[in-house]
Structure formats: structure tokens, C-alpha cells
């Protein structure tokens, strides 16, 4: 068996003796006899050495297909991860530390979170950021809870949010007995007219959640949506792609109350869905309603600048059942990953990367149109777009055969994504393969 217990039989004997028991079984005296499991009743095979375990893991990894190019987004994005990101975040002092409760020996972790909070505020244009939540979907769900008060409890979700985000917010709202209303989509965008009608008849509207760019890659009329929301006395929650923030108007500029999103594009591998990073930023008025950890600056006994977990009166370990959320430790290392990524890229790197995503997606859209794969929507888009086709499966299988993961099949079409990693040569290849498959 594999073991990480650093003692030999003699040492164990001595320790048992000090404790005053004869055997390990004696240590479990408090456990009712009927509950104690003999080895043969535990149906788990015996352990193995490290190389054997690693070989088993490699065998499973080899059963998966790693594509040489990924033109699929829909919530997880194929961006380049700078080498320095992995180097920094695998430092054992960071990797193996607990939540920084002991500030005196955790300034490195605390300061990195403070820096992360600052960078996220810069990216979204908002006043305050928390230290992270689980992912983009749960960030939206936590934001929904922030909008709700005694008089207002209905949460509006655009149907142009990612399906996983909609489902997650619905689950959280079902849990807390809150009503969810879905705003229809028209021409690939959240239907403003429909929302207007829905809000007009509802005095309990708490918040409106929509994405920029939305699930279909399209750019929403954010100013219009926020104006309608505020007229109804509700709060506007924007779920944004962090890379797009290098180019697009920010939630802060637009006057949103809360900005959330999926932080995976900021240096995290696609990793079959996680761990990712949920970011949450809010306006100054709402900062005390933010859930989760927040790091603040203060001074120590000698007046030296330092950082601590702060505003803890909001949190579950103090407020217990009266806390707004149960969230405690979540994705700290992912937040550090995002911070290292943003620092490595710098403003110029983020803006240029956003621009590359934009340009490449528009190039591919134009090339696909030339072979008859027309965009479904007319709206402006960022780095994702839907093309209409009734033979999605055929196209995607043909691409897969050439080692390319094509767009995601959606209703009557394909949702494509281009990142800075999509070389023109690959996109030309994609177009050629599609042309052939359609012929």
C-alpha cells in the first residue's frame, strides 16, 4: 500500500503506550463495535506504489482526446496560459497553505488577494471586489441573492445567459424560495421590449441578470437594459467575460450595480470544467452585501501596513443562520492565478488579446459565410457567434477527425469561439473542412 505516515512500528508502539492503549482498535473504543469495519469488509482494493498509481492516472488521461485547436467556448475558453502563472501558483507556500486566518504568517496570500481585488475592480470598473466565489454560475446566483430584500424577491434572468448559469441561479433561488422569471431572447439579444412589459407589472422585481457578451457571443444593449432595470427599482447584474473587458464598456462605466463572471479565461486551464473562478464586484453602495471573503488593508501594532480578512460580520462563522450566504473558503489559488495572469499580461496584453479574439472571430465568421454558413444573428459580437446549419453534426465530426474541436452544436446551428490561439491557418483549414463536409 501507499503510505504517507512517517513512523515505524517501534515508534507506533511507543506512542500507543504513552496513550495507554494496547492497539489501534483500542483507540476506537467509543465507536460501537457493530460499526467498526474489518479490512475485508471495506471493498476498496489495496493501495499501490506511486509509479503504479501514476500509471493508472496516465492510462485514464490517455483515453481522452486533446485537440490541437479548440473553437468551442460556451463557458470555458482556450487561452494561452503564460508559463509564469503555473510556476508561481505551484509554489508550495501558496499551494499548501490554509485560508489566511493567521495574518501574521500569511501576508503573502493576503496581499495577493488584495492585489487581485484591485485588478478585478480595474477590469470591471467597479468600486469593490470580493476575494472570489466558486465559478461564474455561482457568482450570478450569489448576485441574485444580493439583489433581494424584504420587498423585492423576483429575479429576472436573460435567456441569453449560458444554460449552466441559468440552471444554477434557478437552483439557488428554488432553495431560498425566490421567484425566477426568464426574459425572452429576440434576434440573439435579451428582448428589451419584453423585459419592459414584465417589469411594468411587477413591483417585486429585485434584479435583472444578463451577460455581456451573451451566451451567443452577441453584444447586448447594456445601457438600455440597465436603464429599464433601474426604472423598475431593481438592481442590474452584468455577467462579463474578463478578457472582453480589455475592449468593451465596463459594468462600472455603464452603471451596473454588480458585475460577476467566470474567471477561467484568466490563466486557468479548461480542466474539464474546473477548478475555475467566480469573480464578484459591486458598487460602493453594495459592498457590505458582497458574500465571501474580502481582504482589507490595515496596520499592525507597530503601524506597519498589512492585510487581513475583513468585514467578517457579514459571514457565516459570525452570523450563522442569519448570514446572507454560507460561502467560506473557495477558490483562493484560482484568484491568485488570475492576478498573476493579469499582471503578466498587463493592460496592453489584455487589450491586445481581446482585440485578437475579436478580429479572429470576425475573420472566421466572414470566411464561413463565404461557404454558406451564415450568422444566425445580426447583432455585433465579440469572440463567439452562431452560424445557421442543419448539418452541425456532420461538420463537427469532420473537424474532430482532423484534431479540431469545432463549435458547440446549438439549436439549428453551431456556436463558434475564436481566441488569440486560433491561427489563421487553422481557421482556413476549418473552413475548408466544413466546405468539404457540406458538399
Amino acid at each position: 500500500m501507499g503510505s504517507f505516515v512517517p513512523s515505524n512500528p517501534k515508534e507506533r508502539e511507543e506512542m500507543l503506550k504513552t496513550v495507554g492503549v494496547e492497539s489501534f482498535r483500542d483507540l476506537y473504543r467509543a465507536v460501537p463495535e457493530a460499526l467498526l469495519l474489518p479490512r475485508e469488509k471495506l471493498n476498496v482494493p489495496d493501495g499501490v506504489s506511486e509509479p503504479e498509481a501514476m500509471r493508472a492516472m496516465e492510462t485514464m488521461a490517455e483515453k481522452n482526446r486533446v485537440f490541437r485547436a479548440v473553437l468551442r467556448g460556451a463557458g470555458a475558453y482556450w487561452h494561452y496560459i503564460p508559463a509564469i502563472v503555473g510556476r508561481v501558483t505551484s509554489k508550495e507556500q501558496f499551494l499548501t497553505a490554509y485560508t489566511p486566518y493567521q495574518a501574521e504568517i500569511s501576508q503573502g496570500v493576503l496581499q495577493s488577494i488584495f492585489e487581485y481585488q484591485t485588478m478585478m475592480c480595474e477590469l470591471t470598473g467597479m468600486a469593490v471586489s470580493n476575494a472570489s466565489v466558486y465559478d461564474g454560475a455561482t457568482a450570478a446566483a450569489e448576485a441574485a441573492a444580493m439583489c433581494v430584500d424584504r420587498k423585492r424577491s423576483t429575479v429576472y434572468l436573460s435567456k441569453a445567459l449560458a444554460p449552466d448559469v441559468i440552471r444554477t441561479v434557478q437552483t439557488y433561488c428554488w432553495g431560498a424560495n425566490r421567484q425566477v422569471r426568464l426574459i425572452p431572447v429576440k434576434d440573439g439579444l435579451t428582448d428589451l421590449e419584453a423585459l419592459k412589459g414584465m417589469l411594468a407589472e411587477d413591483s417585486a422585481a429585485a434584479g435583472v441578470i444578463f451577460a455581456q457578451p451573451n451566451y451567443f457571443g452577441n453584444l447586448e444593449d447594456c445601457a438600455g437594459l440597465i436603464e429599464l432595470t433601474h426604472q423598475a427599482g431593481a438592481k442590474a447584474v452584468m455577467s462579463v467575460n474578463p478578457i472582453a473587458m480589455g475592449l468593451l464598456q465596463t459594468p462600472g462605466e455603464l452603471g451596473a450595480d454588480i458585475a460577476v463572471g467566470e474567471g477561467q479565461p484568466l490563466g486557468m486551464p479548461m480542466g474539464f470544467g474546473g477548478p475555475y473562478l467566480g469573480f464578484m464586484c459591486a458598487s460602493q453602495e453594495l459592498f457590505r452585501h458582497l458574500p465571501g471573503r474580502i481582504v482589507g488593508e490595515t496596520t499592525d501594532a507597530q503601524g506597519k501596513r498589512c492585510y487581513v480578512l475583513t468585514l467578517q460580520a457579514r459571514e457565516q462563522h459570525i452570523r450563522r443562520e442569519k448570514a446572507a450566504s454560507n460561502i467560506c473558503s473557495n477558490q483562493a489559488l484560482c484568484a491568485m492565478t488570475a492576478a498573476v495572469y493579469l499582471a503578466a499580461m498587463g493592460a496592453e496584453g489584455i487589450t491586445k488579446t481581446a482585440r485578437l479574439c475579436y478580429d479572429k472571430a470576425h475573420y472566421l465568421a466572414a470566411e464561413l459565410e463565404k461557404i454558406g454558413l451564415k450568422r444566425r444573428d445580426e447583432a455585433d459580437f465579440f469572440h463567439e457567434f452562431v452560424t445557421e446549419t442543419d448539418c452541425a453534426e456532420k461538420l463537427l465530426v469532420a473537424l474532430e477527425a482532423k484534431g479540431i474541436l469545432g463549435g458547440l452544436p446549438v439549436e439549428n446551428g453551431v456556436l463558434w469561439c475564436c481566441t488569440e490561439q486560433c491561427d489563421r491557418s487553422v481557421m482556413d483549414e476549418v473552413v475548408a473542412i466544413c466546405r468539404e463536409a457540406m458538399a
Partner: protein
Amino acid sequence: MKLIFERSMEGHQCSLVPRSDVPAASLPEKQMRRSTLRLPELSETELSRHYTELSKQAYGVNDGFYPLGSCTMKYNPAVNEEAARLKGFAALHPLQPESTVQGAMEVLYRAEQILCQVTAMDEMTFQPAAGAHGEFTGLLLIKAYHEARKDSARRKIIVPDSAHGTNPASAAMCGFTVVNIPSNAQGGVDIDALRAAVGEDTAGLMLTNPNTLGIFDPNILEITKIVHEAGGLCYYDGANLNAIMGNARPGDMGFDVIHLNLHKTFSTPHGGGGPGSGAVGVKKQLAPYLPAPHVMKTEKGFTFERAAQSLGQVKAFYGNFLVVVRALCYMLMLGGDGMQEASENAVLNANYLRMLLAPNCKVATDGLCMHEFVLDLGEIKKETGVSAMDVAKAMLDEGMHAPTMYFPLIVHEALMFEPTETESKQTLDEAAQTVNALLQAAFTDPERLHNAPSRTPIGRPDDVQAARKPVLRYSFENQ
């Protein structure tokens, strides 16, 4: 230390953006960002040194003894990290065709199979990202179960006062009313109080066993029976599973739903506060409501299923997958025999350390403990003025991490020690010597303890100032 923004120099950069090979597309003016994006500008050397400096002011399991109670700070095997970095896992898009991710689905399936054996549960989901997220999911499962049976009057969750704060907070998020019940002298469930609390409105009981005083509740079978007879379900908070892993199983104790902290019991790194994984296991009667999608094994291979009665999703995709990869690697290495060995030694180490410290401080409970124990410094404080906080901070000066302070709430000057099985006798001997010296210093040199720590990078921070005048981001005022 300088903030990264204070190290920034205009024009310094890394070489990370490829040249464009496509024409520039026109941008819709009204959608464009107008404000300046102020991110730090650093070369790779500067960036690397910044984070190396930060890392010198951080403390992980690899740095030294970390007896943080209820957090199970065991050593994180290096091989887990290698496994999680395999391209065949790390480079997978979550929405790839199922035929191209059979190995990843096998990871989820095998981890589920093993953990169901270890917990005596029937099915498991890995979607919850952390322990608290697992609690939330587990309670939603209880809610879904009662709703499906049209037993909608069951709206109360019973929580002992020794529970982690997340328990009542999770119950509230699920729309339940929390009924707090007192503990008995050993921190166990007060059976009479439980009997008085259950009824037709009982949705369930949340319990940590061994409890937060490190005691296995000897009445556990009676407790679950009382709740079941009242029509409620029993929820097992797996925070302390490391005490019994492979030696006793929550499912056999009568629990219906359980969350595990893979980052505690199954050795995945804590990352300075995540990412972890809060896997949730259930007995058959709750399985139809598990979050979707859920991996199933069929004749044609693995497939994702969305059950008709599923409560939906609690997170995007399938959870913190790469954390599950690490945990599976650990479980394969340990095997059933290694798991038993690990928990037995976790209990041995805790009892050994308890014996070494007991002469100098009251232990909150009598007799043997499980994987952790709580020192009660109440009398020391009364006599010397030295608090649990003072001793914890003085431990930092000695190059150790502090134990969990002031928890559970039922012990007022609590220090909760959980050494885990991955510490050697020598480490425990040295740690005990150090802590004993500090406990004695409370009587001889209390000032030193009040002023601790003095050898750490900073002294005690002013938490009040931080909360009263919140500074939550860098202001750029100096630039």
C-alpha cells in the same frame, strides 16, 4: 512589502501576445471601453521576484507543523499535482463529445465508486466545489426529497450548537428554519433535547461526527434512529471523516446524505483557501434528486445523465474536476488498507499529542479523543490573563501554525489541535515541548505572550481599523 502596483514601471512587459495574422475588424464605437485599464507593468523577472517575496510570507503544510483543528492539514502528495497536470485532463474542454472524454468520466466514476464504499453511500456527485457548497447541496437534496413526497411541512433543520457556522447558514440558504440544540458535557448530542426537538416539521438533522471536540458520539445509532422515526433525514458533515476513514462508515451509522471535503480527508492542497471539492454522497432514496449531469456506466461506456427529478445544477459543469483527479490518485495509492492506516494514525497522533499537553492544560473532554482535541484555556486565562489567542500567536513565533482558535463556541478559550497522520513522532514531541513551554510561560512571563508574535513579518493586525475604515483596493493615488 511593496504592492505589485508599486513595482510597476511604464513599458515593462512580458512577451505574451502573438502577432495578428488576420485583418482588423471594425469595432462598434458605442460598445468600446473608455476608461484606462490600470494593470501593473512588469517584466518577467520583476513579476517572478514579486511573487517569490510574497511566498516567503506565506506558510503551508510544507513549511512546518500545521495542527489547525477541523481543517485536516495533512501532507499533499507531490504525485497528485503531477496527475492533475497531465494534458489529458488539464486540456479538456468541458463540453467535448462524450466519446472524447471517456477517461475523464472514468475518473469521476471511479472516485464515486471508491468513496461510496468508504462512506456506505449509494451514489455521489462531485459538482459542489467546497464543503459549504456540499452542505448546501445536501440540504437541497433533503428539500427535494420531502417536496417530492408532498411532505412540505418539514421545514426545520436541527443543528447542535457545536456545529460549524456553515451548517446553520447552509440550512438558511435552503429556506429551512434552524433549530439549535445544546450539546451534552462531551460535546455530543443531548438525546433528550433531540427528542424534544423532532416532530412532524423536522426535515433533518445535521451532524459532525466525530464532533468538533473530537469525540465520536457513542449514541450515534440512537440519534439517527430518533430522527428517522420522526420522518426526518440525517445529514453527515464530513469535515472530520479523517478520524474514521476506512474504519467506520457514516452510511452504517444511519446517515442518508454526506458531504466530503476532498481537500481535507483526501489530501488535495488547500491553496490558501481553495479550490477544494465538496463531494456529496447519498443513499438510494435521495439519488434521483442528485445534481445533473451525473456520470453513469453503460454497456457503451460512460455517459452523462440528467435525471428527470434532478434538483438541477449547483455549479457549471461537473465540479472542480482537477481536484477530483488529485483525490483519486491519492485513493489509488492508499487503497483500502492505506486508508485504514491513515485514519488510525491520525487518531494515534492526536491522542499522543493530547497526552503530552494534558499535564499543562485542561483538555475539554475526558479520555480518548479521535483525530483532534480541544484545549480549554479558561482556567489559565482566569489565573494569568493569558488567552487562547496569546498562546496561538506565540506558537507562530516558534515557527508553527496555530491551532484553530475559539472554536467550537461551546468552549470559551478553545485551542483545537488536529495533527493528522502525516506528522512524525519527532515532530509531535518537539511541538509538545514548545507548546508546553508556552503554557508554562503564561505563569512566568505573561507579557511575552500578550505581545506575541514578535518574530513574524508583521505583529498583530488592527482588525477593528480594517473593518471600520475599509480599504479594499489599491487607490493609485501615488501615481
